[in-house]
């Protein structure tokens, strides 16, 4: 922390004081309460599974046999990325149907998630494109960016993105704060904006397409890293002139490994098949059953 000294005494002060305070309370919990709790690793879960310190990990796999969860997740990330290498074009052009088919098969094999490029004769203008970081969206009347943070770490990670001045394509996510639920919260947290208006047939059947796209789940994959997130469509955009093809919430960008630097990158995006529609929004967690087959 030497680099902060003198330049930012307020940070240095809080860093020292809050580190000492945190260490004191952790030691207190250990000494006073858990010294005699004979649970070994379970005690560790309470003490070291601290919110904010470890909740932004890449894809995790549970019950991974001889490998640790992290090793297993990383190996699956790496496997998907490695298998995609020779199937991706060097530029972000539209993929052919044959290319989509191969990639969809790989995703099913490696992540266990069935996806489609077309459902009910409706498809987006592309399945591979440049994603850019978006701001948070207002979820209900009176919402504010600070309300989006689950805790302080959440604010530090995502608060800086700010909140868009206008509403998302479907308006508020909930009619009031009272009607706001954990499910609605997840919709905004893991939203994407896609170019619905460029879908073949959109202009002829706007209402039908709007209903089709509203909060529809999609799987977004960073082909370079294999990181994947289940997101829902909550906005329309970006405009064609931007050169980008879709947008991701701050949390989506984080889970794709694209939250830093230029906050954009090439991604694959497919509709979740009906058989996968119950997969929760958020980073892909390979379930126990699948992990056992791996």
């Amino acid at each position: 922390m030497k680099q902060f000294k003198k330049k930012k005494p307020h940070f240095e002060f809080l860093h020292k004081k809050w580190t000492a305070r945190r260490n004191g309370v952790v030691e207190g919990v250990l000494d006073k309460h858990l010294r005699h709790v004979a649970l070994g690793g379970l005690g560790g879960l309470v003490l070291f599974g601290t919110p904010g310190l470890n909740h932004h990990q890449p894809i995790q796999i549970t019950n991974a046999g001889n490998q640790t969860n992290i090793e297993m997740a990383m190996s699956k990330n790496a496997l998907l990325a490695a298998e995609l290498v020779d199937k991706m074009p060097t530029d972000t052009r539209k993929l052919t149907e044959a290319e989509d088919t191969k990639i969809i098969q790989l995703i099913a094999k490696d992540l266990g998630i069935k996806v489609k490029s077309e459902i009910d004769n409706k498809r987006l203008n592309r399945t591979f494109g440049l994603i850019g970081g978006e701001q948070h969206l207002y979820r209900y009347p009176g919402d504010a960016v600070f309300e989006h943070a689950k805790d302080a770490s959440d604010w530090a990670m995502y608060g800086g993105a700010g909140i868009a001045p206008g509403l998302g394509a479907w308006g508020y996510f909930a009619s009031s704060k009272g009607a706001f639920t954990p499910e609605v919260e997840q919709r905004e947290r893991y939203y994407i904006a896609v170019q619905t208006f460029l879908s073949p047939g959109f202009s002829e059947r706007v209402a039908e397409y709007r209903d089709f796209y509203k909060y529809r789940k999609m799987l977004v994959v960073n082909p370079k890293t294999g990181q994947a997130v289940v997101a829902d469509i909550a906005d329309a955009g970006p405009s064609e002139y931007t050169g980008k093809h879709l947008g991701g919430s701050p949390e989506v960008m984080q889970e794709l490994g694209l939250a830093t630097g230029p906050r954009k990158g090439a991604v694959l995006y497919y509709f979740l098949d009906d058989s996968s529609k119950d997969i929760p929004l958020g980073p892909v967690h390979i379930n126990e059953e699948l992990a056992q087959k791996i």
Partner: protein
Amino acid sequence: MIKFYSHIVTVQSLIIELDQMDLSDKEKLHLANLLDSTFHHTILDAILRELNEEDKTIFVKLHAENDSKKFWEFLNKKVDNIEDKIKSAAAQLTKELHKDIKEAKGLKKV
């Protein structure tokens, strides 16, 4: 891991204060992690001090199971007004942290 107290504890007032300070993204995250960790362990302390040794073991097991309903049923059964006790511990900590922030804001660059 469940954040079992998120419905009764908020750090929003502290976040608003930190947001007004001249901090880089890394500095923000560092302080935010310390803040969350301190809240977490302060709340654990507030709960564990109310439990006997046997119940502490059960508490740790239930916490690891991530079953929020079962977890709160246990706490409500074992401790009178547990939510009030958690809120009180969090409020006291919030007050102290606000005092720290106020003091930090008063420091001048060297």
